[in-house]
């Protein structure tokens, strides 16, 4: 299922590249899980299967990069997006479900739903801000922040990895629009 969807989404992103100091790069496929659980049901568990769920709302917690990468984006009081390597999704799903046996929660594999872009380079914040109305100053949205918001006409999940390094995740069907929007903004 996932493989078929990955193949289907491949043509949506073009090899568009920006020629300015800010680069907009489509990222390789990632495993993404939409995870929802009431804080009461978590019952004090800070970590589940290596995913750190203890971060504040709109923050990003991440373990090491690479094959064992486990990133948790807390998008709301009871909602997380868990990101892992593309070929690890099934194992992570099983492990999380096993850890939460008998606890009411929702865990959905949405890897195929989204496409991510990295926006990097000096001035990356103004490129994102060209279509995203939230305050991206380091005071209001420091490195380690992540939130669902808007870019132009599309809904995105925005992560700030460092001062000049963002990840923009959007639905597959919005990807050409978001990519074009960001590349256009780098030419500004």
């Amino acid at each position, binding site marked *: 299922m996932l493989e078929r969807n990955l193949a289907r989404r491949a043509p949506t992103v073009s090899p568009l590249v920006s020629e300015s100091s800010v680069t907009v790069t489509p990222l390789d496929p990632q495993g993404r899980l939409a995870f929802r659980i009431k804080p009461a049901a978590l019952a004090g568990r800070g970590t589940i299967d290596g995913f750190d769920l203890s971060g504040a709302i*709109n923050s990003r917690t991440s373990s090491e990069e690479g094959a064992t990468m486990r990133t948790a984006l807390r998008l*709301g*009081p009871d909602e997380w997006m868990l990101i892992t390597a593309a070929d690890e999704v099934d194992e992570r799903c099983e492990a999380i479900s096993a850890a939460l046996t008998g606890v009411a929660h929702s865990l959905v594999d949405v890897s195929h739903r989204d496409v991510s872009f990295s926006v990097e380079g000096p001035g990356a914040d103004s490129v994102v801000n060209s279509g995203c109305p*939230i305050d991206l100053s380091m005071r209001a949205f420091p490195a380690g922040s992540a939130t*669902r*918001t*808007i870019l132009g006409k599309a*809904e995105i999940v925005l992560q700030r990895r460092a001062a000049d390094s963002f990840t923009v995740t959007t639905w597959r069907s919005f990807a050409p629009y978001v990519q074009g929007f960001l590349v256009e903004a780098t030419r500004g």
Partner: protein
Amino acid sequence: MLLIDCPYCGKRPEVEFHCGGEAHIARPEMPTAVEDADWGSFLYYRTNPKGLHAERWLHGHGCGRWFNALRDTVSDAFVATYEMGKPRPDRDEATASSPSNA
């Protein structure tokens, strides 16, 4: 841009939100036991005040949560926001008229 203070996310731009009409309207426990006039009133009649108005708002392009907001319908100033299920804050018109959006 108008900033709305989401109880979960803090101050966020207006375009991320959606208004859901008047707040604190409880559905009758037993609709069959309600008179037609009262049911019509529950369904269709709203207060539409000039001044402070308690409304439901959805932070759809954010945390995805509903919350309540106290808004001045004259100045469009958001006087207070509070979580669903909490009682309407006790604010008077004098407080409301001050520009407290900032």
